[in-house]
């Protein structure tokens, strides 16, 4: 039993890394464009389907297929910005929420119509690494490593480049950012492209771990929200920490009880946090 818990802990940390990528993307979009991307998990699902499609229908080898999937999702992100977010920048909150929520319906059903309700996946066998009685899947390790590396690169981008500076400025004070010469439209597109690319990346990491189906996105959308709100919406560090907390909690609960219980616990944590401290762990009252 102890071994199982340790493994669950480990898996929780490893998956936490990937979830941290999701949290980053959502927080970036919310912080900069001030919009909650309601269909973020569905975008991950779409990325997965893209990779699957390139691999199986176009016979593209796996790694290039993953790269193409990332690019495809970056483009989808840009399209989302241009077609949906841009026209609604000054619309009431409700309209923005509902517009993105309707994306949930469109993307899920598009997947169902095109690829059917069956589970699709790319069969990959990757080695399992053993430490004594503890087994770790190398796919998890790879995902974790890739996620941490990406987060590092993103950190450098935000803090050492002019574009990154521009993104941070727009997130803090849009008018001031305009007044120092930043073109917000470019920043928004960049933000959505990055957010989209991240979903493609997460999908790539998920390929050796999961199979995809039209409702795949739903649990990740909610998981991403739970993490992001728990850590403080718009707060990149908060999202990072929260991803690991939630990752570990759900992983261990799933082992101790059941997968559904884990999800219910995560949601209960979310609702609880909302009521006790709505700004999340590291958020500031705005």
């Amino acid at each position, binding site marked *: 039993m102890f071994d199982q818990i340790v493994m669950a802990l480990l898996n929780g940390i490893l998956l936490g890394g990937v979830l941290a990528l999701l949290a980053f993307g959502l927080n970036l979009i919310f912080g900069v464009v001030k919009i909650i991307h309601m269909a973020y998990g569905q975008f991950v699902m779409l990325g997965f389907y893209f990779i699957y499609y390139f691999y199986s229908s176009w016979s593209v080898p796996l790694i290039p297929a993953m790269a193409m999937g990332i690019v495809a999702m970056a483009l989808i992100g840009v399209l989302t910005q241009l077609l949906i977010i841009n026209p609604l920048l000054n619309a009431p909150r409700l309209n923005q929420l509902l517009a993105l929520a309707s994306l949930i319906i469109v993307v899920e059903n598009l997947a169902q119509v095109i690829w059917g309700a069956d589970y699709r996946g790319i069969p990959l066998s990757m080695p399992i690494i053993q430490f004594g009685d503890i087994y770790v899947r190398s796919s998890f390790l790879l995902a974790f490593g890739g996620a941490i590396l990406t987060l590092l690169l993103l950190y450098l981008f935000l803090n050492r480049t002019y574009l990154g500076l521009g993104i941070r*400025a727009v997130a803090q004070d849009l008018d001031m950012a305009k007044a120092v*010469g930043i073109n917000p439209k470019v920043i928004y597109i960049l933000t959505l492209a990055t957010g989209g690319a991240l979903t493609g990346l997460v999908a790539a990491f998920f390929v050796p771990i999961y199979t995809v189906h039209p409702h795949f996105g739903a649990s990740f959308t909610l998981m991403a929200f739970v993490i992001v709100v728990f850590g403080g919406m718009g707060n990149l560090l908060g999202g990072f920490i929260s991803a690991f907390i939630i990752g570990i909690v759900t992983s261990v609960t799933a082992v101790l009880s059941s997968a559904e219980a884990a999800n219910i616990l995560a949601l209960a944590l979310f609702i609880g946090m909302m009521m006790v401290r709505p700004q999340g762990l590291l958020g500031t009252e705005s």
Partner: protein
Amino acid sequence: MLNVRDVNVFYGEFQALDSISLKIEKGQTVIVVGPNGAGKSTLLQTLAGLQKPRLGSIEFDGRRTDQMEAYQVVEHGISLVPEGGRVFPHLSVLDNLKVGSYNKAARSQADTWLPRIFELFPILAQRKKQRAGSLSGGERQMLAIARSLMAQPKLIMLDEPSLGLAPLVVNMVFEFVQTLKQEGYAILLVEQNANKALKVADYAYLIESGKLVFEGSSEDFDKNPYIKTAYLGL
């Protein structure tokens, strides 16, 4: 250099500026005074491109700027120091200055300018790595002005730079405006504190309720009895 003609600005149905016209020549220091809510901030925001006039035209350095986006206006050489010592609170002092040189023309100069700025503002050099939001009011105002310089402007617009600051600090700010003047920048200064402002001005405008009510040199203002009592507290 700056030619503002009959600019009308509306917020929805409310008219904030009514046929405002003003001119600024190269290297000139022009001030706009007027009571609270007269539309002074709106004027600066419009000149910066953050608001668009419904009627009228703004010409700067030979180009029409009234319909330009704010970032384009900055590229053309107008830099705004907004009121209240507004800085990017979660960025460091250094990052605040760097972001000031965001526009393409200024970026290449950023590295040469930073040391100069730190010479002019030693306090900022000390607090380089500090979060800008944790600076005092006066320091933030200095940072805001320093940041506007990083944009390589030809015209600097200051929105009520003395607001909320202690008298000693206010003196420092106005001394600084003198320095800017000597460096050759064109300056547009908006102030409620007419006394201090008139001392640095080459030319002045008085706005009340969105309308231009009086214009002239500092002496003209001094001699006008209405202005003397209403604004100069004499």
